[in-house]
């Protein structure tokens, strides 16, 4: 277990030291959301209606930006080989790295979302729901994303390829994330979509690292 935490702490420390990945993701999120009212015009009712969807989709795209680096830098500098000779199975290596991505990128994005909600005239009631669904839903983004990152390890300029591979898999998270927010604002039952959202994330936490590890093994041959 100490090996797992050593890896997690190293990846978080690298995320802080390098800084670029988080800054890019947050900046991208801000710009995409800020440009939307400029494009659609200042119709406050319209913005308020589409705000949850826009915030979720922009968050998925922003998180994608840094996914490519999850395994790539370790592959390029030879660290992945040494990681593979360690006491952790590659599955747990993938868990540690996806968890580090979640903490260093997805959580800050989820926490920035309510600030951006102000730009879109999001209803006041929706803020707690927005942050809650994002915190529950984003593990799926990092852990499913790890599969794409592992599969495109050797592909030069694999960023766009990751988007193609992974974005379709984010659809359930997106659908139920937004369904939960709408349910909290309206008369619908909120428990069901929230439970499904949780189930998707839990499933991703189990299945993502398994798939990512077998992709890594194939790439290291």
């Amino acid at each position, binding site marked *: 277990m*100490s*090996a797992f935490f*050593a*890896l997690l702490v*190293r990846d978080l*420390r*690298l995320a802080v*030291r*390098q800084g670029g990945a988080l800054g890019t993701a947050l900046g991208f999120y801000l710009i995409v959301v800020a440009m939307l009212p400029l494009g659609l015009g200042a119709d406050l009712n319209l913005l308020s209606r589409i705000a949850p969807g826009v915030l979720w989709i922009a968050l998925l795209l922003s998180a994608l930006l840094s996914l490519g680096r999850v395994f790539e830098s370790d592959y*390029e*500098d*030879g*660290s992945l*080989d*040494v*990681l*593979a*000779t*360690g*006491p*952790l199975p590659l599955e747990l290596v993938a868990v540690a790295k996806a968890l580090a991505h979640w903490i260093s990128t997805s959580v800050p994005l989820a926490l920035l979302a309510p600030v951006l909600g102000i730009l879109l005239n999001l209803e006041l009631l929706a803020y707690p729901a927005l942050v809650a669904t994002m915190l529950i839903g984003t593990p799926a983004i990092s852990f499913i994303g790890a599969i794409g990152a592992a599969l495109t390890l050797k592909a030069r300029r694999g960023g766009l390829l990751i988007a193609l591979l992974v974005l379709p898999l984010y659809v359930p998270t997106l659908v139920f994330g937004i369904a939960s927010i709408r349910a909290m604002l309206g008369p619908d039952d909120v428990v069901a979509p929230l439970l499904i959202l949780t189930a998707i994330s839990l499933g991703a936490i189990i299945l993502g690292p398994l798939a990512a590890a077998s992709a890594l093994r194939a790439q*290291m*041959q």
Partner: protein
Amino acid sequence: MLLVVENLVLSRGGRTVIDGLSFRLKDGEALLLTGANGAGKTTLLRALAGFLQPASGEIRVENEDSDFELGERCHYVGHLEGIKPHLTVSENLLFWAAYLGCETLLSLGDRAAIALSQFGLAPLADIPAGYLSAGQKRRLALARLAAVHRPLWLLDEPAVSLDAASVGLLIDAVKAHRADGGLTIVATHMPLAFENAKEVRLGPKEKLA
């Protein structure tokens, strides 16, 4: 431990690189892998580390009580050093020492400090590893060997970009490792002065010299 390789066949990209290689290596022995570029030295080391599945043949360990994967008992130092430029020299080594782990009486910090001074990196401990020269990076990668005890060392061209004094440090480290009963397999183009090391020349016809 006794490392036994029998009739090993390895292929890369559909081409058979190593065809029917056999050798045995026991406690305290060193093996030099030589051969032309593309003869399969790195391929063989990667197979021993467990990254590559043999097409046929067997790699096994005898005389061991515990049932470990060979990959978890070895140090693999390849062409790439596995060093993060944004971490300091000592942070890099401390991470590998904590990650690779081993049971000793010494604390992590002590082991890392000893390993750094053994490879002459102690004065550089607190600078970011991105500022190291190629030879210093290589020494930092080799310091992993000293920081964590593992019975099998797989070294791929370890002397590349090392100066004469550093090659001496490497040879001393291998000597100490062998005296401790460890196994060493080194792929190299340069003559390395290991005492009575076995040699396998890889190429169209492998044979044990």
